């Protein structure tokens, strides 16, 4: 299972599951990190922690310990083409228009 802290900077992933303590989950989800959304890992801070993400066009920084609670999946199209998502440069940013994010429908409660 891939978690957000293992994603190589520069690559985009889809959030599968947000775990961890309830208050952390709530905060992450309220900032828009909900299952089905695309997250891009931008970079990792000099001491190896925290990591910087781009979610819904906003740059957030969370610690590796917290990122470990977020299970992610490689972008389906890229993975299908046999190329690991982690090596692909990611360009598309989330916006309100590109809301047909794969996985959103299936993750509905």
């Amino acid at each position: 299972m891939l978690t957000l802290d293992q994603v190589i900077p520069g690559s985009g992933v889809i959030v599968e599951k947000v775990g961890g303590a309830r208050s952390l989950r709530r905060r992450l989800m309220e900032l828009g990190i909900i299952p089905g959304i695309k997250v891009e890992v931008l970079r990792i801070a000099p001491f190896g922690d925290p990591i910087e993400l781009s979610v819904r066009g906003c740059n957030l920084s969370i610690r590796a310990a917290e990122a470990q609670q977020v299970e992610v999946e490689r972008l389906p199209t890229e993975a299908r083409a046999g190329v690991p998502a982690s090596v692909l440069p990611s360009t598309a940013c989330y916006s309100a228009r590109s809301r047909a994010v794969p996985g959103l429908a299936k993750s509905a409660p």
Partner: protein
Amino acid sequence: MTAARTAGTATETAEAARGVPSGEPPLPLLLLVGNPNVGKTSLFNRLARRNERVGNYPGVTVERRTAEMSLPGGQRALVADVPGAYSLSARSSEEQIALQAVLGWADNPRPDLVVVVVDAGQLVRNLYLVLQLVELRVPLLVALNMVDEAGERAPDPQALGAALGVPCVATNARAGGGLVELSQAIVARLARAQQPRLHVSYPADLLRDADAIADALPAAWRGSVERDRALSLWALTSLEPDDELVGIPDELRKRCAEVLARAGQRDIDREIIESRYRALESLLAGVLEAQPGVATKTAPSRTERIDRVLLHPAYGFAVFLAIMLVVFQSLFAWADPVMKGIEALFGLVHGLASQHLPAGFLQDLVTKGLIDGVGNVVVFLPQICLLFLFIGLLEDSGYMARVAYLMDRALRSVGLHGRAFVPMMSGFACAVPAIMATRTMERRRDRLLTMLVVPLMSCSARLPVYTLIIGALFPPSHMFGVLPVQGLLMVAMYLFSTCVALIAAAVLGRTVVRGASVPLILELPPYRWPGLPSVLHLMWLRARSFLREAGTIILAFTVVMWVLLSYPKLPEPQAAAALPVAAQIAAPGAELSPALAENEARASALEYSFGGRLGKALEPALIPLGFDWKIGVGIVGAFAAREVFVSVMGMVYGLGDVGEDDAPLRDRMRAETHRDGHPVYTPLVGLSLMVFFALACQCMSTLAVVRRETRSWRWPVFLFGYMTALAWVTSFAVYQGGRLLGF
């Protein structure tokens, strides 16, 4: 104007918070709410016209700014800000403020209109808060801010307003755009209510849960069906067994726990949040669909290009160090001439007052008490202003969040927040502005922990003391032929104090100010040009609140110190007789060297004063550290400010005022002997004394400013207690350990 000013001095009742004395109809109250970094402060500064006041929210030390604004048609209103929040759900009493302020609970005045400021470039996330406010059915107006920055991504305010059912005005607070339209919309909105249209379709199970909780809500909270439901959802996401919320009835907690237990496999938090985001996404899609030419971003933004350099593991760190070097060097280099000028000016006024007032109690009170006291306060202003100028620029440009990002790993290992870096480094210049700088942290626990360890950083007032002791007691020789002993010692003192501060943070953070470890979720906002007027305005507000609140305490302490060091006066005829007796009573066995006989009247007067007696009374506690009562008097005097130690020691040894040149004092210290002929000052005593000065909280201004920032005497008393105890124990270990080793 006058009416509001009288109210400004009144107590913090709901009426006074509205700025109107009872009897007159209260001004309508507008509340500015929004996510962090959306330009709320800029908008506040644009709207605020007069009577700006900085206070605190009831019960918590979270800043609350209020001011009067004028509306079209000559109407006036009061505008207040609410700390930035991404959501109304809360875990701590600080996060709870937003909800309390919006609903007018817990001694907050009930707002007539909530203006929610929204970043047009980050719509979905910002609208999450708007949605919560809509659900609570508070009177609402949306200020769609930063439309210029959002460019093509900005929605049409009319269309967005129509979709939300909430009036929506495009603004550009930083440049002052859209303010007229905003004022007109405020007037219109105050005049008539409007039903919001935004609707979230929650799962049926969730609605049943919410309704099951609704009747456990306290009667005072309940309103319309929609509000009850919204508050039930708030309670469901916010209440936890270990939360720090206040004023939550047990019945409500119990009911929420029952519902959560019954939910079993269902993920209630996710159901709520996901339903809301889904509603917002479809709403936005509808709004943007109608707008041709709304582009999705493609090329990396300007911020991303800057961050590639500024957050780079190598260059990013180099730039960071360079920026910090400029900031802290300027605290020393730029502030110093101004501080010298202020000191000279007050010296001049002191001299003039001495000439024109008849000698005696009144002259002493005015010159040594009041004028010196005001001088002691004003002298901090250059550093405070400079530090807040830099903090304002760093915050406003978006770099401060990057400082926290870069330093988080290092500071977290001792339990400090990444944002503690700037206050900690400022502590090398002076603890007073550094403690005020802790406000950049949102959490009380982080602020408190930083405040408690910042005074351990070796501030510039300790420098004259180190210089005196090192100069007097350590040879200007070199170790191994190259390393200067004196310079090494100075560096060692700075390293020592930094290490102790970090260790203290680790220990205090796990004991006294223990708090659940809070996940760091840091937004890295886009880089923006700082708005200089708003930065300068904030700097002025900080300086003013320091002068008003900490300044009065520092002034009072200065007068007390003056009384302690000047009274009781030596009775003239008995002077010669009383002196040895007093010395013998206070400290039997104290040495009466022949030098004492030649001392000037000032030395005897100082010795006879409360301060002198206190120094002697402290001697039993000081002997184990290697100090005699004269050093004790110096330590008492240094409470006014550490550098005063040098001049008090000059007075104790009858050398008069020791100014810049302390060579006579150094000679005198080297010559000072105990009764048995051993020198009082050995290098070991010097080391013990420096350690004591590095660790003891001998600074009334620090205590005054901690009192101001925490709004209680508890923390300054604790700070004084723990630092003094730490200083005593460490000096004891150094002195006694050194003696055991044969030094």
